[in-house]
C-alpha cells in the first residue's frame, strides 16, 4: 500500500515532463496532459483513500531513494501519508483538476498557453511533494518548487511591468520564509543527530526527551518554522504580498493564492505540530500571530474596493483563524476550515468578473442612500484613523519594501564603490590565500583562527549584496554569486572537516550552472548592444530558448533541487555547529539573497516590456 504514494509524485512529474515537449500550437494536447495528470491523481487518491480509511487510516511512510550517503550523513527523500496529507492532496488534486479543465477554455488562444500549463504542473509537483514529504529535506524540495513556480505564474504576463515587479516581490518574501526553513533544518540536525522523519515526531517520548535537553533550541526551531509558515501563508508582517500576487490569469490566482499555495504555511504547522505541541510559549505565539493577522487583514479586507484584493485579504484573515485553531490543537477543525476556505476563495475568484453585473443589479433594486450617523467626535476620529490605516494596508507593503528590499539595497550600495577589477583581484587573492592557509593553518594569527569561518562567510555575504545591487554588468553580478559559493565552501572548510567529496557535490552544480549561465549572458551581450541591470529589457520576447536556459542556470546556481548543489547546501549546514548561530545565519542569508539576486538578473534581462518595442507596448501602470 505504501508504494501507492509513489504515484502521487510520479504522475505529476511524468505529466510535467511530457507537457514540456508538446509543441506550443497543440493546445488540445497540452491541456489534455494537464487534465489527465490531475484527474488521474484525483482518481488514484480517492480510491486509495477509500481503502485506506477502511483499513483504519494508519500513517503510511515510504523511506526510499537515498540520494547521497557519506559517513555520518544521509540524504534521503522520504514520503509520508496521513490524514493531513490526505486532506491536502484531496483538495489540491480536486481544485487543480477543476482549474485545468476551466483553463483549457479560458486560456484558449492566449499567448503562453503552454507556459501556463507547464507552470501549473510544475506547481502541482511542488505541492504534492510538499504535502507528502516525510522529512524536512523532501519538504524543502517541494517548498522550493512552489516558490519558483509562484514567481513564474505571477510574472506570467511578462511583458508588463507590474507582474514582473510583483513576482520578484513575492519571491523575495518567500525567500525570507526559506531562511526560516534552512535554519530550522540546520538546528534539527543537531537536535536529532540525523535527518528527522516526520513520522518520528509522533513519538511523544522521543520528541520530548530531545526537547527537554535543548529547550531553547526547540523553541528556536519552532519559531523558524513559524517564520516560514507565516511568509507562505501571508500572515503578519508579510500579508501584503497576497493581493499583489493576483497578476496572472484569474484561474491561476484562484488556485494558487486563493487556495493551495497560501495554505501551505498552515500545512507546515500541522505537520510539525507534534514537535511544538508541548512548547506552550510557541503555541501562544502562533495563536497571537494568527489573531493579529486575522484582525488586521479583516480590517484591510473591509476597505478593499477591488474584488481580488478583497478576496485575498479575506482569505488571509481566515488563515489567521486557522493558525489559531492549529495552535489550540484543533487539527480536524483546521483541516476542515482549510478545505472550506480553499474551495470558497477559488470559487469566488473564478466568478469575480461576474460581480459587476450582479452587484450593479443589486444596487439598482436595493440601493438606500447612505445615512450620516452622528457619532461622538472621538469615536469618529478613531473610526477615520482605522479607515485610513486600512487603506494604507497598515503600511505593511511600505514596511516590507523599506526593511527588506531597501535595506538590502542600501547595505549593498555601501560596499559597492570598488571597481570590478579590484573586487575580483582582492577576492581572488582572499580565496586563494584562504584555501592555501586552510592546509597551512600555522600562518593564521591565533586570535583569528576561531573567527576565520565567520569572516569568510561575511565576505561572501558582501559579494552577494554587491551582486544584488549591481546595475551595470550582469556578468559581474553572475560572477559574484559563483564566487560567493566558493566563499561559503571555504568558510565551512574552516569550520569543520569538509572533505573533497562533499566539496565536489556542492560545487558540481554551481560550476555547471555557472558556466551555462555565463555563456548565455555572453551570447546575449554579443547579440544586443545594450545589456545591463538598470532596467527591464524583456529579451524573452526575442530569445525564448536562451531565456529558458538561463532560467534553468539561475535555478541551478540558486541551489534549486535540480543539481547536487541542493544536497551540498544541506551538507554545508551539517558542518555548522549548534552554537554558531551567527555563522549559520550569514550562510543562510547568503544563499537566500543569492536566489533573490539571480531572479533579479533573470527578470531584468528577460522579463518586462521588450526594450525594442515602443509601439503597442503596455503602459507601465497597466
Amino acid at each position: 500500500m505504501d508504494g501507492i504514494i509513489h504515484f502521487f509524485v510520479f504522475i505529476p512529474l511524468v505529466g510535467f515532463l511530457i507537457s514540456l515537449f508538446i509543441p506550443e500550437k497543440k493546445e488540445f494536447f497540452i491541456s489534455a496532459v494537464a487534465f489527465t495528470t490531475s484527474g488521474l491523481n484525483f482518481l488514484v487518491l480517492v480510491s486509495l483513500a477509500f481503502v485506506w480509511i477502511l483499513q483504519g487510516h494508519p500513517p503510511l511512510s515510504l523511506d526510499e531513494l537515498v540520494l547521497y550517503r557519506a559517513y555520518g550523513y544521509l540524504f534521503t527523500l522520504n514520503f509520508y501519508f496521513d490524514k493531513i496529507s490526505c486532506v491536502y492532496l484531496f483538495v489540491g488534486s480536486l481544485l487543480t483538476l477543476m482549474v485545468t479543465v476551466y483553463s483549457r477554455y479560458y486560456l484558449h488562444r492566449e499567448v503562453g498557453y503552454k507556459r501556463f500549463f507547464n507552470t501549473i504542473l510544475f506547481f502541482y509537483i511542488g505541492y504534492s511533494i510538499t504535502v507528502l514529504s516525510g522529512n524536512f529535506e523532501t519538504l524543502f524540495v517541494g517548498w522550493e518548487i512552489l516558490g519558483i513556480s509562484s514567481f513564474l505564474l505571477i510574472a506570467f504576463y511578462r511583458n508588463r511591468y507590474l507582474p514582473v515587479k510583483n513576482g520578484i516581490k513575492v519571491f523575495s518574501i518567500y525567500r525570507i520564509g526559506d531562511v526560516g526553513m534552512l535554519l530550522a533544518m540546520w538546528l534539527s540536525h543537531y537536535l536529532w543527530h540525523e535527518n528527522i522523519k516526520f513520522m518520528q515526531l509522533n513519538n511523544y517520548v522521543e520528541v520530548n526527551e530531545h526537547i527537554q535537553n535543548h529547550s531553547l533550541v526547540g523553541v528556536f526551531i519552532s519559531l523558524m518554522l513559524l517564520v516560514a509558515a507565516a511568509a507562505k501563508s501571508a500572515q503578519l508582517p508579510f500579508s501584503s504580498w497576497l493581493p499583489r500576487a493576483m497578476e496572472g490569469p484569474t484561474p491561476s490566482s484562484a488556485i494558487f493564492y486563493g487556495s493551495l499555495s497560501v495554505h501551505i504555511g498552515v500545512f507546515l504547522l500541522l505537520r510539525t505540530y507534534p514537535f511544538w505541541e508541548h512548547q506552550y510559549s510557541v503555541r501562544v505565539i502562533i495563536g497571537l500571530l494568527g489573531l493579529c493577522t486575522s484582525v488586521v487583514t479583516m480590517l484591510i479586507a473591509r476597505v478593499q474596493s477591488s474584488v481580488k484584493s478583497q478576496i485575498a485579504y479575506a482569505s488571509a484573515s481566515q488563515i489567521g483563524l486557522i493558525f489559531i485553531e492549529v495552535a489550540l490543537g484543533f487539527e480536524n477543525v483546521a483541516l476542515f476550515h482549510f478545505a472550506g476556505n480553499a474551495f470558497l476563495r477559488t470559487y469566488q475568484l473564478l466568478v469575480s468578473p461576474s460581480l459587476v453585473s450582479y452587484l450593479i443589479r443589486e444596487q439598482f433594486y436595493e440601493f438606500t442612500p447612505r445615512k450620516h450617523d452622528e457619532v461622538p467626535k472621538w469615536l469618529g476620529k478613531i473610526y477615520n484613523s482605522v479607515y485610513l490605516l486600512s487603506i494604507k494596508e497598515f503600511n505593511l507593503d511600505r514596511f516590507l519594501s523599506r526593511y527588506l528590499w531597501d535595506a538590502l539595497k542600501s547595505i549593498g550600495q555601501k560596499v559597492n564603490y570598488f571597481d570590478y577589477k579590484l573586487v575580483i583581484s582582492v577576492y581572488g587573492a582572499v580565496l586563494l590565500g584562504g584555501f592555501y592557509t586552510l592546509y597551512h593553518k600555522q600562518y593564521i594569527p591565533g586570535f583569528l583562527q576561531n573567527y576565520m569561518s565567520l569572516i569568510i562567510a561575511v565576505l561572501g555575504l558582501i559579494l552577494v549584496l554587491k551582486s544584488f545591487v549591481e546595475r551595470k554588468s550582469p556578468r559581474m553580478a553572475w560572477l559574484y554569486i559563483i564566487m560567493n559559493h566558493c566563499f561559503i565552501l571555504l568558510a565551512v572548510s574552516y569550520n569543520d572537516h569538509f572533505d573533497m567529496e562533499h566539496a565536489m557535490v556542492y560545487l558540481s552544480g554551481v560550476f555547471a550552472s555557472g558556466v551555462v549561465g555565463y555563456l548565455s549572458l555572453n551570447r546575449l551581450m554579443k547579440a544586443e548592444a545594450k545589456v545591463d541591470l538598470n532596467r527591464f529589457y524583456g529579451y524573452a520576447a526575442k530569445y525564448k530558448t536562451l531565456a529558458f536556459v538561463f532560467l534553468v542556470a539561475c535555478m541551478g546556481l540558486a541551489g534549486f533541487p535540480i543539481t547536487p548543489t541542493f544536497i551540498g547546501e544541506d551538507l554545508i549546514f551539517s558542518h555548522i555547529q549548534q552554537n554558531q548561530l551567527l555563522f549559520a545565519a550569514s550562510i543562510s542569508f547568503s544563499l537566500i539573497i543569492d536566489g533573490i539576486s539571480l531572479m533579479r538578473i533573470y527578470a531584468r534581462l528577460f522579463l518586462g516590456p521588450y526594450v525594442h518595442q515602443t509601439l503597442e507596448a503596455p503602459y507601465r501602470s497597466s
Partner: protein
Amino acid sequence: MEINESLFSEHHVLHKLKHYLPAQAPLKDFIHHNTLHAFQSEKFFYALHRATGIFGYKTLLSINEYRELFHQSKISPDIIAKVVAEKKGDEEAGKWIEKMLHANYRQQVTPRIGRLRSLWKRNYHIDMDADIQPLLFRVLCNYLDQGIAMWQFPVIKEGLLESILALEQNSYSSLFRTNEIKEMFLAGKWEIKPLLDLLVGDESLYEQYLFDQQFAHPGWSGLVAIIESNPQTLLDTRKILLRELIVFELLLELDALNYHFGPVWAPLQKFASSSLDELLFQPVKHSEVNDVLALWQEAFEWSYYDQVLAALTLSDEQEKVKTQKSFQAMFCIDDREASLRRYIEKHDRDCETFGTAGFYGVEFFYKPEHGKFVTKLCPAPVTPKYLIKEVDSSHKHNRDPHLTKYSHSLLTGWLISQTLGFWSAFRLFLNIFKPSMGPATATSFRHMDQFAKLTIECADKNDKEDGLQIGFTIDEMVDRLESVLKSIGLVDNFASLIYTFGHGSSSVNNPHYSAYDCGACSGRPGSVNSRVFCQMANHTTVREGLKGRGIFIPDTTRFVAGLHDTTRDEMVFYDEELMTGEIAAAHQRNKKIFNDALDENAKERSRRFEVINTASSAKKIHEHIKDRSVSLFEPRPELNHATNALCVVGRRGLTRNIFLDRRVFLNSYDYSIDPEGKYLLPILKAVAPVCGGINLEYFFSRVDNQKLGAGTKLPHNVMGLIGVANGIDGDLRPGLPSQMIEVHDPLRLLTIVEHFPDVILTVLQNSPETYEWFVNDWIHLASINPVNRELRYFKNGSFVPYEPISKIEVADDEISIIENTEDNIAVHLIKHE
C-alpha cells in the same frame, strides 16, 4: 491654437486634457465611441500620425503585419496597383509599390508624452509612479466605489478634496507621509499653479507636466473626467473633478519628494532645458513610412470594399412588384442581426425584413418594478423626457450566497467558509462540467419581465415622476411611428404580422457585458423599446392618427415585439397571449421559421469558434453556443461586432442575395419615399457616431491592444464596479479586451447609401458634426444610384465615379461556404435553387 504656449492657463489645460483623455464611461454604461475622438477634426491619416508621435499609440498595423496579409492574399495586388496609382500617380507607382513590399523602415517611435516627468527618475532616482500611484488609485477607487468595499469612504462631501479633508481633519492617521505637505493640504492650498511652481518651476513646462502626469494613468484620469461631466453615470453619485485628482496627485508627489529628500531638492526645470527639444503638441515630423503605411491600409480596405461594391452592382434582384408578404420583421441595424435576417429570408422567401436603429424611435427612461433608478433606453447623446414603467412584475432578484460580502468578515467568514465553502466546490464542479444559468449570469431576458405590463400611454401630461412624463401622448406616438415607418420605407403592403425585435445578450464573468447589448439603447437590451413600439402601433387611436399622415395600417395587421439574444441565439415574444385565431396560428408557424433560422445562425457564428465543429448539425451546434453564454470559463461568449466593416443604407433588395458574412450594419431606407432626404439625415446622424464609433473602437483596440485596448481580459480585476484593471495596483483599462477584437480586421466603415449623390451631399452638409466623420475620412462613404446602379465614392468633399475591378464568386448556399473556413469570407452572390 498653440499661441501663448509660455503662459499657463489652468482652464485651458484642463479643457485640453479632458479632450484627449479616454472617454469611456463606467462599465455599466459602456458605449462604443471613436477611441481617438480627440483627433477627429483632422484628416484620418494625419491625425493617426500625430497621435503616434505625441502619445505613442500604434494607430495602424505594422508594415510586417500588412506584408503578412499580402502574402496570405488578403490584400490584392490589383488593388494595391489601383490604390497606389490613384494616390501617387502612375509614374511613381512602381517605386512606391517596391517600398511597400521591400523597403526597410524603423518603426520605432519615442513618444513625446512622459519625457518631462521621466526626469525625476533620471535625476533623482525616484520612481514617482511606483511611489504614489498605488495609494492614489486606491483612494480614488474607494471614493468612487459603487458597492464592492464593505466599509465605504467614511465621509462623502462636495468633491474628492473636501471629503479627504474631512477625513484628515479628524484622524490620527494620514494619507501624507510628511507634515509639511499635510499642513499644506489642511490649509486648503489647492491651487494647481502654486503646486507646479514648487514641483516644476517653469511655466512653459506646466502643460506638458500635467499631460505627462495624467497620461501615466489615462484610465483613471479619463474616468474621473467622464464622471465630472456626467455624475449620473454612477448610481450612487459622487462629485469629483479632474482638477481635484490633479491637485491631490501633485500633493502626493510633493509629499514623496519631501519624504525621500527632505526639503532640499530642486524643481524639475533645472534639468529640463537640455533634454526637452520639442513641445508636446508641436507638429509631428512626417516621414516616408507614414505614406507607406497609409497606402497599405487603403489597399487593405479596398481589397474588401471593392468586392462589396462590385457585388452590389451585380445584385440583380429588382424590387419585385410589391406583393403580399407572409410576415415582416424589423431588426436593429446591428451587424449581428444581418446574418439572422439572411436565414429568416432563406426559410421563408415571402417574408420581408427591415433594419433600423434598435431603439425604434422611442426614446425614454425605463424604470422596472422595484427599481430604485431609471435607465436610459435610447442613443447615448439623447436625453429623453419620458418615463416607461414596468408594473405587475413577478420577477424575483435571485441571489448567490457565495457572492455575499459577509464571507469576507471574520466570524461570518469562518462560518461561511466551513459550510458554503464546500457547496462552492460542488457548484464549481457543476458549472465546469454542466454549465447552466445562475444568479451571476447577466442576461437580456431579465431586463424586463416577459409578463409584466408597461405604462405606455400618457393619460395626463402632468403625470410626472422624477421630472419625466409617464408614457407618450397619442400625438407623440403618431410622430414616432410615422418617422420610423417612413425612414425604413414600410408605408404600405403591411403583412398581417409585423415583428419588431430588440436584441441583447447573455454572458457570465463578463465585466464588459453592456458592450454586448444594443448600442442604440445605451448598452441595454432593446426589449422594452420594441415592446413599446409595437403597443403603440397596435393602438387603434394611433392608427387613426397615422392615416392622417398617409399611412394606412389594416386592422388585420398586428405588431409583435420580440427580443433576440445574440449570444444564445434565442428569442422571446411579448404579449403573445393577446393574439388569437388565425394570427396566433400564423405566429406559431413563424416561430418555427425563426427557430430554424436561429439554429443556422448559431452554426454560422460557430465557424469562428475553434472548439466547435461547424460541420455538425445546426441543432447540436446551437446547444454548444448556448452553453458558452453561461460557462464561467468562456471569455468569448460571442464575438460581438468583430469584423464589422460596412454599413448599407438602402432597400433590402440591394443586399438580399449577397453574402456579406456578419460584417454589415443594415439600415433600411427607401429613396423613393424620401426624395429630398428628410429621413436620411437622422439615419446618417445615427450611423456616424453609433456604427462609426463601434467600428473605430474595434479598429484602435485591434491595432494597439495595449494602449488603446484593454489587453487580455484573463487577469482583469474589477475595480469599484466601475472599471477593470490588471492586478490590484494597476491603472484602469479602457477599450476592448483582446478576446473581443482578435479576429477583427481593422478596416474603416464603408457606408453605402442608395440615393442620388447630390441629395446625400446636401443632407450631410446640413449636419456639420456628421459631415466631419466623412470629410475627414474617418468613415468611407459611397453612393449607389437607385436608378442606374452607378457607384460613386466620396473623396475630398465630392462624389467621384468608382469602377470596381473584383470578380464575384457565386455560391448555391451559404452553408457550403461557412463550413469550410474560419477566416473572413470573400463576398459571394448566393443563388438559392
